[in-house]
């Protein structure tokens, strides 16, 4: 109780002190122009500091809202930037492909890898382009670095393909520009390795030769690099197989190009 009384007495003393000082200052303001100017300047400074402080506090508490707005803008800009990046990469890939001298009879559609498997013997690849984008089944999936696989089926917005890391996929390949032609298949021995099979025993395949798509197919465009030869092995005493180190790094694959041959149906009908 006594503590409360002391507190109120202190409060009253402080209040009276402030009132008396303000009263003295008011008298001083009226009695001297110099002091009037000085007090005005002083009070303006105090007001400026006070209002500045109040504004700073308001700004501080307004930062949360500003942060949310900025975060939203940041997200929108990030999406826009990603979109442009993807477009740029696709254009770059296309230009590389053009510079690689790909035959103009193929239609090319840039696509992004949505999902891909590399852990089984029948690996797949799903791309973000579908029939709405003009993708047809039996189209090749390539990159400027090499063949990736082929489209198996298409949805409106996505397409499902079999990657080169699938034992069912066989690509007609050529060693060098004018070398022997043989089917290239995956042997299941790692994601960077495939084999050229059915190589006759009398043919010698030097190590380090580039393996390209042969073009003897309605699916893959010719002269797409696939890998380099790494050695020859005798299988069952009858044929050789050539080990090929693949150019495409399937673990880091993201952007690909779908190569579709518009004349494929005509060629297939003629083959029948």
């Amino acid at each position, binding site marked *: 109780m006594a503590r409360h009384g002391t507190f109120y*007495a202190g409060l*009253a*003393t402080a209040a*009276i*002190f402030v009132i*008396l*000082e303000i*009263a*003295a*200052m*008011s*008298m*001083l*303001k*009226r*009695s*001297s122009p*110099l*002091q009037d*100017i*000085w007090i005005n*300047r002083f009070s303006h400074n105090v007001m400026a500091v006070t209002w500045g402080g109040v504004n700073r506090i308001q700004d501080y508490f307004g930062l949360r809202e500003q942060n949310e707005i900025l975060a939203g803008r940041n997200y929108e800009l990030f999406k826009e930037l990603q979109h442009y990046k993807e477009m740029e990469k696709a254009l770059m890939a296309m230009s590389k492909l053009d510079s690689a001298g790909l035959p103009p009879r193929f239609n090319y559609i840039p696509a992004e890898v949505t999902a891909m498997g590399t852990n089984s013997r029948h690996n797949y690849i799903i791309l973000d382009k579908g029939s709405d984008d003009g993708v047809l089944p039996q189209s090749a999936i390539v990159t400027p670095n090499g063949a990736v696989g082929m489209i198996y089926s298409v949805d409106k917005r996505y397409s499902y393909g079999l990657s080169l890391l699938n034992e069912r996929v066989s690509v007609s390949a050529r060693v060098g520009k004018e070398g022997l032609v043989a089917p290239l298949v995956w042997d299941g021995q790692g994601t960077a390795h495939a084999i050229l099979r059915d190589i006759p025993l009398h043919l010698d395949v030097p190590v380090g030769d580039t393996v390209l798509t042969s073009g003897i197919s309605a699916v893959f465009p010719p002269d797409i690099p696939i890998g380099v030869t790494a050695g020859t092995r005798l299988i069952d005493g009858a044929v050789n197989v050539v080990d090929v180190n693949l150019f495409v790094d399937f673990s880091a694959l993201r952007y690909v190009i779908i190569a579709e041959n518009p004349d494929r149906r005509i060629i297939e009908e003629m083959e029948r």
Partner: protein
Amino acid sequence: MKNVRFIILYVVFVIAQIVLCNFFGLSRYLLISVLPVLILMLPLSWGALYSMLFAFALGFAVDFFSDGMLGITSFALVPVALVRRFVVSIVFGAEKSARGEEITVERLGIPKVALAALMLCSLYFVIFVWVDSAGTCGFWPALLRILLSILVSTPVCVAVARLLRPQ
């Protein structure tokens, strides 16, 4: 009888202060004021509230009857009244303040009264010179003015205290 003598002397010193302000402008750098000690010598039974009200009225009276700026003395003297009991507690001891005993030079000694007067004069002249210069005076001239005023006014204040309450 003692109180009557105290009141008469108190009024005389107030009048002397007014006369001093009006007719004895010694130097631009020297102010002589006994008002801090007049506040110090107020009865200790008066709390800060009454002391401040009295200091305000005293400052107003001095300004009103002298040719100074009205309000400046009140402005400097009210803080002196506010801290008076605190200074008394520090210099003379807390029990002196609590018991409400009167301050006398004879009983408390010149050094303690001089110290209390010095503290109150310092506060008074710092505020007075600060307001009086109104930002037109540099730091060192203002400091010189404050120090000179304290140096001269403190002994005068001790003498006034001795005269006000001789025993």
